């Protein structure tokens, strides 16, 4: 059951990424291009995504997930260097090509050789970050 719903969530996420234009690097770089020909589409994507998710969080109070287990614990409030520095590195790479992790995975079937090269480099980066992560980030923090 968990697998079926995980598949459905992943599929709906991927469909949303394609429909919204998040897997189109021109649109993403257009959104980040505030000093050029700015494209505001991604504001609608983020706004549209936050709305249902904001409602969903209100249902987690003193309840348990449908398939059992527990909801994620309250978010950490600690803002630290890995968070800030990692986000800066991530943003720089996101701007360079216009792909973040979700869309990079969702577009694997139609992203061609460029998409494959980016994806493999991203995997390599994630593996390379593992030793740094173990030192810097306390375990049990949700991704």
């Amino acid at each position, binding site marked *: 059951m968990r697998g079926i719903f995980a598949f459905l969530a992943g599929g709906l996420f991927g469909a949303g990424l394609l429909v919204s234009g998040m897997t189109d690097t021109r649109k993403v770089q257009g959104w980040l291009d505030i000093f050029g020909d700015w494209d505001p589409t991604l504001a609608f994507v983020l706004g549209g*995504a936050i709305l*249902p998710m904001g409602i969903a969080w209100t249902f987690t109070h003193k309840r348990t997930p449908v398939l059992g287990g527990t909801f994620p614990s309250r978010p950490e409030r600690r803002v630290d260097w890995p968070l800030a520095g990692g986000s800066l590195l991530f943003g720089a790479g*996101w701007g360079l090509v216009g792909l973040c992790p979700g869309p*990079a995975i969702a577009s694997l079937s139609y992203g061609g050789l460029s998409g494959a090269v980016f994806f493999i480099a991203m995997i390599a980066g994630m593996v*390379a970050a593992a030793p740094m992560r173990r030192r810097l980030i306390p375990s049990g923090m949700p991704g």
Partner: protein
Amino acid sequence: MQPDWIFGALGGLMIGTAAALFLLVNGRVMGASGILGGLLDGSGRTNRAERLAFLAGLVIIPALLALGMGGAQTHATTNITVLISAGLLVGIGTRLANGCTSGHGVCGISRLSLRGLVATMFYLFAGGISVLVFRHLLGVI
């Protein structure tokens, strides 16, 4: 007339609904970098199958949709140096920050997480600077 914002909002609602489904049914935060990264460094050992099923849906459904639409394109650069540098930056950065656009942006901001908000401000800022420098100043993208 630009209908792009309608598709943006519609796709955004689909993304948010997917995140809501994964949270309320499976009890998990829908963060792409965390779900993939956890498989790579072993931190996601306890729920491997769930992560793999999510990633399978994330690849297969857009593939079918793109096929039905007569193809889709990412319009990504073909510059191999740019692709490899960007991929490494995204991989390392999202794992150090413990989240990306979906985890910090969608799931974090929607629960008013300070970390999610700060991360999103930092990666949006860096993304803007990156496009400014590499597109307008250096002209490489």
